[in-house]
């Protein structure tokens, strides 16, 4: 029997903080507070531990280990003092899956209307996986997919189904 296209693993222990602010005005302060460069439109920057994703012209998503969350929230609040801004802990609202393996792209290509061969590293794509909202970006060895907590079972199911052995998209 052929191998599965990619491993699908639920990832726990990641914190996510939604930041809304005028990125032109507050960009430098945010970069300092997060320790990461501010990503350009549709981008995501990372230092290997933390990542900062561009969600909209006035929204960023900071992803970091759960243990660093409280400290980060505090730094962000400080950095944004006097600014019109919103910082919210969204860690519990999300479900995270890593899809890793040589044919991880095939798994996502079955579920999301996204041109994966053109999805460069450092790009965060907000899209959908079949019928549920999802965003994803490249990580070493595959892709990281985030969706909503309430549809985590569905997301896990369709990812695993799409990764079934022998179902690669290469022409046969």
């Amino acid at each position, binding site marked *: 029997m052929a191998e599965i296209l990619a491993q699908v693993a639920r990832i726990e222990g990641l914190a996510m903080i939604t930041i809304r602010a005028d990125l032109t005005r507050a960009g430098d302060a945010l970069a300092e507070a997060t320790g990461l460069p501010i990503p350009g439109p549709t981008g995501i920057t990372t230092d290997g531990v933390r990542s900062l994703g561009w969600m909209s012209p006035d929204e960023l998503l900071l992803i970091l280990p759960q243990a660093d969350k409280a400290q980060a929230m505090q730094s962000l609040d400080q950095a944004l003092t006097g600014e019109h*801004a919103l910082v919210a802990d969204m860690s519990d609202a999300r479900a995270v899956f890593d899809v890793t393996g040589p044919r991880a792209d095939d798994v996502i290509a079955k579920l999301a209307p996204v041109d994966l061969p053109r999805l460069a590293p450092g790009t965060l794509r907000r899209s959908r996986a079949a019928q549920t909202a999802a965003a994803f970006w490249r990580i070493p060895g595959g892709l990281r997919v985030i969706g909503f907590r309430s549809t985590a079972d569905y997301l896990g199911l369709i990812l695993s189904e799409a990764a079934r052995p022998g179902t690669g998209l290469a022409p046969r």
Partner: protein
Amino acid sequence: MTRTPPFRLAQGGRLIDRAFQLPFRFDGRHLRGVAGDTLASALLANGQMLMGRSFKYHRPRGPIASGAEEPNALLSLGQGGRFEPNQRATTTPLVAGMVTRSQNCWPSLDNDLMAVNDWLSPLFPAGFYYKTFIHPRPFWKHLFEPVIRRSAGLGAAPTDADPDRYEQAYAFADLVVVGGGIAGLTAARDAAASGQRVIVLEQAPHWGGRTPTDHPGGQAAIDALLADLSGRANVTLRRNTMATGLYDHGYLIAREAIADHDPNAGLPRQRLWRIRAGHVVTATGALERPLSFACNDVPGVMLASAVRDFIIDYGVAPGQSILVVTNNDDAYRTALAARAAGLDVPAIIDARPLADGALPQAARAAGIRVLTGTGIAKVKGGKHVEAAALCDQSGDGRVLETIACDVIAMSGGWSPVVHLWSHCGGKLLWDDQAAMFRPDPDRPPLGADGKGNVTVTGAANGDLACAGGLEQPEGATMPVWVMPARAPYRLRAKMWLDFQNDVKVSDVELAAREGYASVEHTKRYTTLGMATDQGKVSNINGLAILSAALDQPIPQTGTTTFRPPYTPLTLATIAAEARGEAFQPLRKTPIHGWHETHGASFEPVGQWRRPYCYPQGAEDRHAAVNREILAVRGGVGTLDASTLGKILVKGPDAGRFLDMLYTNMMSTLPVGKCRYGLMCNENGFLMDDGVVARLSEDSWLCHTTTGGAERIHGHMEDWLQCEWWDWKVYTANLTEQFAQIAVAGPKARALLERLPGTIDLAALPFMHWAEGELAGIPACIFRISFSGELSYEIAVPAGRGLELWQILHREGRDLGITAYGTEAMHVMRAEKGFIMIGDETDGTIIPQDLGLDWAISKKKPDYIGKRAQQRPHMTDANRWKLVGIESLSNKVIPDGAHAVAPGRNANGQRNVQGRITSSYHSPTLGKPIAMALVRHGPSRMGEVLDFPMPSGDVMQGRICDPVFYDKEGSRLNG
């Protein structure tokens, strides 16, 4: 002549491998084919020419084609969940062990009783059903239609669920070439050289289209192109993939057959590709047209190209003596192929006065008799061809000679496959010279930039000699729409146009005489082209006949509309992964698993499943709801309220913003307090409600209904981004960040005070909130109540919601803690006279209708909906308004029941003056309660209304105050 073996030729068959024998079954008989066979070639190789019965007259049918256009050879495949009706034998690869059945015949294919329809065919002309079954009118619905429907239809529908998997996938390309014949592969090669991303789709399992069959050296030319393309990283070659439809913006849908041949391999059986193409090249080839001569539907009359496909590709002899009839040079290839395979070719009947091209010359040189200016007057034979009676093509069918044969290979010319071009708006032009519709290069389908985004090449473009140096010059095709030209009615009534639906030349002519001038109307009246093949072989001949009958040129008649899919698409392929557990995403709260293990009976609320109640033991739902309500009213209960929307609104202008969104004042709400708010749309209608909490100087938390979370968040962003873009407000939808648990009942505080925590509940007044820790979990506690009881709604991070729920149930066991569901919540709020969005509102209700004037600010200059609520209709004293209803019979009046008023309206219906919006049995009060909207109801307290029931009974209810329980609100304090 009779049909004689051998049916499989001793040699040849470029697509088959004789070393692998494949057993299969047809109508219970055990047969054998070889690897590479289609079902049609395997059946022919077993001498089985008869493969089905026509739809209307149940005439015997054999295959006339060798590909996707086949109208006749439709079989049922498989058994149980894998049963599939109407599969084309000509495109279905033979699989070992395949179980196949013929259709539309009883008791058997050979002896079909319904063939009596054929004897009676003079009684069934076009429009027979419309004319015959129109009177008396009621009979149509109750008698005629059910009977006709029962006898109609070809294959049966499957009854079991399909056990196989299907999937979809997305792809993107600069160029998609549809068709892997010589034209398509050449176009792909040219584009690939420039580095574009190219996808080539071929519906068949093999590349090359007609070229390897029709041209010596053809396979080598195809192989050379494939070698070039397969070496390029920017080219994807995909076989077994049928482009089914082309839509706006270069959106191309294609179906890839992956495991049709081996459904047990665990692979998806089919895959639906959804491709975004920068540009599309259609290289879809052309389909050969039949000729219209009498009894051209007898099994053994086949398209000339199909006859040579079976000989050359599959090594099958459709017959031993093959008579060719044509109006073009191409069909001579069939005669030469048959002769080369050692089969007899008694003559080539050419309708043209002259035939002197290279191919006719070659045929003559091979010693084949060529009769020009000749046609077929009539085919002899019933279940198979026995002979052809010949006549002068220009005459009226007087028989000159009869030639014995067992196959007639006919060619009426070729029609480009223009389907994809036409799906998305590409226009056609009539090429008089070639007698065909072909794409008009000046009117292609347009892309977003207004330029053509489809081009067409090869035979699909009318270029029938597209194989370059492999071609030899061919003489012109002569249009022949009826054979012979002056055939009398007797012959025209036996000339088939649509073989599957039994539409003949005489039917189309009748439609024209009866006034059907539009080709679309004629199609529907006669059913021409309406069968599962969608008229691939019949349309052009049909509209040529119609044009002649209407005495107008063919382009004036035009074609019917080409619609996707090109060939039928299995519904399972469209549904793909969306079946079973993955049919729809099911939203689950953090406490969902507990509900499941505790026997919750769920109800759908949007994509959520919420516990309706938790039946225990032998309890039914009604008993469980009653028990849950009494437990809350008498002790304490918990409700999973996690699905409620929770939207954070923050910024210097947030207060001003919320004052516009809600009907009441939110900007003045002190920090630490909560306020119930109503949200209306621009038309003044109530769209959502919920409790708003002021979190800080510049932030508010807005609770919405479960169904309103995403919608209201979108509503907020819409106003912020489109109208008040300069207001400094940010929103965030925190709905899923928190689990929220309502703890309600007179013992609610006692329970919560047992948990360690930092929040002083005794100091938390009604409609206040506090933040702190509860049982070691960070929590916000809102003292709000939808049940009328002492009640706290506790929000904790979603990941800890289950933990808190379990602690509550452990600590509250001796207090009789009870989980309650949505129905108990509904009943308790109705006992209190609280409205429910979606019950008391239906999109036409304003807050004033519901007696909610107290929640509408009089001071504010504006809010969304304010002006609409001042319109005369909205302030009409006769509007239906909220009241309570006491049932006089002690039975629950059904929800939705209408209260009638004296008199009848213009339609003769009873006038109405109100309707029930919520209705329950109240276990608390031991009687039915209801809420209703009644014409100026609040001023009619005590009046009795009549509610007629469908049974004819009339229920009565008395108008009362909608607050049935604890009017003074004392229970809010426990």
